[in-house]
């Protein structure tokens, strides 16, 4: 008979540590979950948050030119009320000046930002040669800085401002949103009413009788 006994025991120290941790965790959770005593009344508090969307809205979505003038009567290419003549006839959407009309409304929403505007080529309905957009600062090749062959010019004008903005194919600040005629920031909800002037080409290499131009306003962050 052996005079000794072998006893094997699992160390219990780590179990004790685990139990202690679980207890501490349970106490912590119980304290956090404890409801605050209430007398049953409540207070509704309204909260305003900063806008998280930057947008621009233009009304209406399309415009029709009218009040067309200019062109050559002798060459039988003078403008009619709704048709652009050659050379360098002009058409209007709205009329400039203090007593003018400004049928297009541009509305900016969002945090303070900038409103840009740009033009594009005029697209003939029948396809083929397009009219390129030019401005007085660059590339207008007609007489007196007017559009040359297959060129045209677009200006936008606004109420209460003598400044008109000549459009280019790239983003240009819409100066109507800045009283100083510069590139100031637009506040949320601010809107401008504007009109469009279009000056046609000296002559056209495309016989299409219907053309479409696109003018795009863009909302952009400050620092642009």
């Amino acid at each position, binding site marked *: 008979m052996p005079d000794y006994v072998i006893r094997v025991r699992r160390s219990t120290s780590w179990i004790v540590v685990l139990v202690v941790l679980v207890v501490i965790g349970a106490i912590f959770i119980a304290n956090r979950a404890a409801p605050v005593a209430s007398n049953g009344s409540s207070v509704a508090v309204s909260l305003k948050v900063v806008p998280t*969307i930057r947008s621009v809205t233009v009304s209406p979505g399309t415009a*029709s030119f009218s009040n067309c003038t200019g062109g050559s009567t002798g060459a039988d290419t003078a403008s009619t009320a709704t048709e652009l003549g050659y050379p360098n006839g002009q058409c209007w959407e709205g009329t400039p000046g203090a007593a003018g009309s400004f049928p297009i409304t541009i509305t900016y929403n969002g945090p303070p930002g900038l409103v840009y505007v740009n033009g594009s080529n005029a697209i003939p309905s029948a396809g083929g040669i397009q009219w390129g957009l030019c401005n007085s600062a660059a590339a207008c090749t007609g007489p007196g800085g007017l559009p040359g062959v297959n060129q045209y010019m677009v200006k936008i004008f606004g109420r209460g401002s003598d400044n008109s903005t000549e459009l280019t194919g790239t983003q240009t600040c819409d100066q109507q949103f800045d009283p100083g005629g510069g590139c100031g920031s637009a506040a949320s909800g601010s809107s401008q009413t504007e009109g469009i002037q*279009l000056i046609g080409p000296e002559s056209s290499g495309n016989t299409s009788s219907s053309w479409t131009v696109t003018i795009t306003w*863009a909302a952009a962050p400050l620092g642009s």
Partner: protein
Amino acid sequence: MRGWVRHLRRLLVVLLAVPVALVALASFSPWSEASVGVGVQVGPVSLGSAAHPGASYALPPVYVVNTGTQAEAISARVERLTRGPGRVVPPSWIQFTGPDVQLAPGKAARLPLELVVPSLAKPGGYLSDIVVTGSAVGSSGMANLGVAAATKLEFQVSPIPAQGLSPSFPLWTWLVIAGLLLLAFAVFGVRRSGLRIRVERHNAYRGATHRLGGPRA
């Protein structure tokens, strides 16, 4: 008397008919109150960590909403509008991976983007804008008035190429490594929990017990 009543009826009919006709005309005219509008998230589109040359990354999708009153076709492009430090993002690096988007008035969508960094991309910060354009279908002979909204696009490109960063092991390799690590951790845990062996000798002559102690397994 009858003639006067008849005349009054006619007058009433005219007075009622004119405003009703005007209201009907205004409600059926497609361009009377139509507007085009587009909005985009204010928060910039950015990558959480530096991009590596030669790798592709899914950028957070851009939130776009139609703020106009007519359905619009939505398109997006990359253009540098924002001033400031940072290289211009080449438009070819950003791919708009989703289908063409048509949005009804007031509806929103998220445009998925993917950043594809060429292997020869220069390291440093990049800054441009995501410009989202909304356009309604216009008629020929008109001036289409379009809208756009921009939000910043910014990310960093690391000088370390993607190949040198993570070996291209197959997935099963990573799973085996993870399994081995887990097994090693379990063995270590069991050993640390310990089995204490105690040997006790009963001294028959003295009636005492000599504890010989025991090693910890």
